Structures are given as C-alpha cells and as structure tokens.
C-alpha cells in the first residue's frame, strides 16, 4: 500500500477523529474541574465560543487576518521574485555570486527576527516593517533553492540541447530553468510559511494590526481562550496555505 492510500484509509481517519474528541473532552474536564488552572490551558468550549464570536459575529479575527495575510502575500511575492531573480543572476554570472557571497552568507546566518527592531526604526509600526521581516526570510530560502536547482541540472540534458543546436539563451530558459522548477517550488512552499512567520513575529513585537498583535494583546490581558483561538486559526491558515501551494505544484509539476 502506498502512503497516500494509507493516510486516507477510513479506519485511520475515524481513529484520528475519535482521539481528537477524547483529547478535547479530557482537556475540557481538566479545565472545568481545575485539575489544571484554565489560566494556562484555557477551556475548549470557551475557545470555540471565542472562535465563533470572532469569526462569525464581530469578525475581529477575520479583520486582523486580512492585515496579516496581505502583509504575508506582499512579503512572499517580493521575496520570491527577488530570490528567483538573484538566483538566476548568480547562475548566469558566477562572479556576481562570488562578489555578493560574504554579505549574503552573513545575513542568511543571522537570526532574522533580530532585525525586527531595526526594521521598526526604519519603517515604523505599520505593515512595511512586517513585510520587510517576512521578505528577509523568504528571499534567502527561495534564492538558495533557485541556485541549487539550476546548478543541479543534468549535464547530459545540456549536452543534448547543445548538439540539437540550441544557443545559450534557449538552453537556459528551456532546459536549465525548467529543470530547476521542482526545487524552486519547494523553496516557494517553505518561503510562504516563513513569510507568515516573519509577519506574525513582527506583529507580536510591535504593531497596531494583525493576528500577531491580537495574540500578544490577548496574552497580556490573560485571555487564554482567545490566545488558543488565534493559534487554532493560525494553524488552519498555515495548513490551507500549504495545501494551496501543493495543489498548484501538483498541477504545474504533473510530469513528475
């Protein structure tokens, strides 16, 4: 049996649902009887009540999510475009890569969240500082994957293209670049999650809007149920984004 069918088999799905329900019941019981202080763990029924309220009634969560998502989208698109562009430039003109390698390596090994204070100083409390942080994460991931993908092109493919009479430009666009798409795509998938990470991180540190800002506000006011509700929402958001990327990937890379 391949992993796909195993994951989707009904027995496993039923077991997963049953254990999730059991876990929530246990959690609810622990919070209700105060076996564990609900200040730390919240209470499932109240978490879902908060989720319902903030998604369907006052829609606070959705309004904040719009901020977070648009910042993430901006960081992701800018970071990916720049990452791919620099990656291709590096592959085409190696001297540029050698020239830029020291500062890029240094920036890439820096824990990017440490740049947050600087970005706040430069770009203020608004969305731009969050986009910059997301960008700084996505850019290097996509850059590295683009370079790795384009460098690992099968040399026989290149030889054959040369023998078939393809010039440098045709070889680059029709062979090297396309053969790198799968690797670039796994960079994009990771880059998207990291763009979200950067944006949320930035919002938690200092912001007026966004899910990160909401999260830190709720935590500071000991609204544990709200914190869990936002976390659940974020997890669902992350999974949705990943699935979306997978679907696009499966379509574009159907030849694999």
């Amino acid at each position: 049996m391949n992993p796909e069918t195993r994951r989707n088999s009904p027995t496993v799905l039923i077991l997963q649902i049953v254990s999730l329900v059991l876990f929530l019941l246990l959690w609810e019981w622990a919070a209700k009887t105060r076996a564990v202080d609900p200040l730390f763990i919240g209470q499932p029924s109240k978490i879902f009540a908060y989720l319902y309220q903030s998604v369907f009634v006052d829609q606070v969560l959705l309004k904040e999510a719009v901020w977070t998502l648009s910042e993430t989208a901006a960081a992701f698109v800018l970071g990916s475009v720049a990452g791919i562009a620099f990656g291709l430039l590096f592959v085409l003109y190696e001297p540029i890569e050698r020239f830029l390698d020291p500062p890029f390596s240094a920036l890439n090994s820096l824990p990017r969240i440490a740049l947050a204070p600087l970005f706040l100083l430069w770009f203020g409390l608004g969305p731009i500082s969050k986009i910059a942080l997301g960008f700084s994460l996505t850019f290097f991931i996509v850059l590295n994957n683009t370079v790795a993908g384009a460098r690992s092109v099968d040399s026989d493919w290149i030889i054959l293209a040369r023998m078939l009479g393809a010039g440098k430009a045709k070889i680059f666009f029709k062979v090297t670049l396309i053969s790198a798409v799968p690797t670039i795509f796994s960079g994009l998938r990771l880059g998207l999650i990291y763009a979200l990470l950067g944006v949320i991180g930035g919002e938690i540190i200092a912001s007026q809007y966004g899910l990160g800002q909401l999260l830190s506000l709720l935590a500071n006011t000991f609204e544990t149920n709200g914190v869990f509700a936002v976390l659940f929402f974020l997890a669902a958001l992350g999974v949705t984004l990943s699935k979306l990327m997978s679907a696009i990937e499966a379509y574009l890379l159907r030849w694999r």
Partner: protein
Amino acid sequence: MQLEERTASIDIENVNHLFPGGVRAVSDATLRIHAGEFLSIVGPSGCGKTTLLNLIAGLIELRDGRISVAGGSPRAGRHEVAYMLARDCLYPWRTALENVMMAGEFRGVPKATRMKRAKELLGHVGLAEFEDHYPKALSHGMRQRVALARTFSLDSPVMLMDEPFGALDAQTKLQLEDVLLDLWNAEKRTVLFITHDLNEAVTMSDRVVVMSPRPGRIIADISIPLPRPRSVRALQKDPHYHEIYSNVWSRLEEGLNQEGRHAP
C-alpha cells in the same frame, strides 16, 4: 534525402587525443565513413570510442589530427549532425511528442512542420498512442524509441550514436535495432554507431571497425556483405550471418593478438 559524398561523409586523419592528466584515449586514428554508410565501432570498455565520437561531434576540442564531418569541421550544434546517447535524455517535463518536437524547436523549424514530422516518426517507432505520455509513464525501451524518433526528426545527413541500446535488455534491444534499421532504410543517413556488442555491430552495419584496448587504435576494418534490407531478428537464425560473424570474430582476435605482440 539525397546524400552527397562531400556533405555526408566523415573523414578522420591521424587523430590523437590525450586527456589532461596524461590518459591517451585515441591513438593515431584514420578512418573514412562514406555517405550513406552504416559503420560500427566496437572495442573494449574504456578504449576511447566515446572520445572519438565526441571529437567528431565537436564536444571535445580536437588538438591533434584532422576531422572533417559533413563537409565542415566538428562543432557542437551543427545542423548536419544528429547525436544520440545510451541514456534517453528525454526532458521529463515534456510529453513524448513534445520531446520529439524539441529538436526542431531548437533549430527554428516551424511548429506545424515539426508536429507533423514528430507524429509520423512516433508512428514509425510504434508509439502513436503514447504521444501525450510523459517519460515517467514510459518503459526504458519506449523512451529509447522516443529518443530514436527525436534523432531522426532532424534532416541531419550524419548521425552519431553512442551505444544507443547499451542500457536495454536483450529482447528490447533486438526490437529497437530493427526499428533503427527500418528508419534508416526509409531515409539513408551516414551512421557512426558505437557499441561493444559485436553481434549488434555485424547485424546492423556495412562495415565494422575494431579498436584496441587503450590507447584506442584501429586494429581491424571489416566489410559486412549481408544483403539489405535486413531484419535483425531474422538474421539471428541465418547460417550466412553466423559464418560472417565468426569470420569477424577471428579477425578481431587476430587484431588483438597482433596488438599483444606489439605491446611492450
């Protein structure tokens, strides 16, 4: 296609090749392959067959000796020369049809012409129903058929083939040898075919050239007087073929023995 001696022959004179590091891969090779001739080179592994082919293809720079191919000097990407390897080298992101069309695409052939030609050739190699399959969904033998079709999709008068069936099982190999002979019969080209399978060389070729172990020297040049058109599978049972085969085999041994006496 009309083949002319001047524009479809390969002329190799006193070619030597020394790899950096001092490996002498080809030693004083002189050989003429006539227009429309199917010539095989056989020889033990590592004797310099691929090196010689790549010198002719222009993939390795010629430093010592003279090579003229299809009326010009060796250069990668010349339209007069087609090239095929043991690995199918299909582009996995293209369907069988798109792979066959690729050759013309690189050379600026109009799309309609390429498409027509590619469909025709895929039909010839027995893959008409698999046009829209990606390489991952084709067997080894089928992939090599696509590669054959791609090689023939160009009007190049000269074809260089480096063990194109070397990676196939015996059964598939016989099938593909017949496919190649059919294509070649329909449109005669000059073929330089590299193999280390003597049986394959004898059944397919007009002439078989034997190279010695490294440094590769040409030690025998044998004509194969089997009538055309040939069927590789039918030949396996033909007594005349077996007679010629053992004749070639003894000439080969002779060459190798003499080689042994020459060796220090």
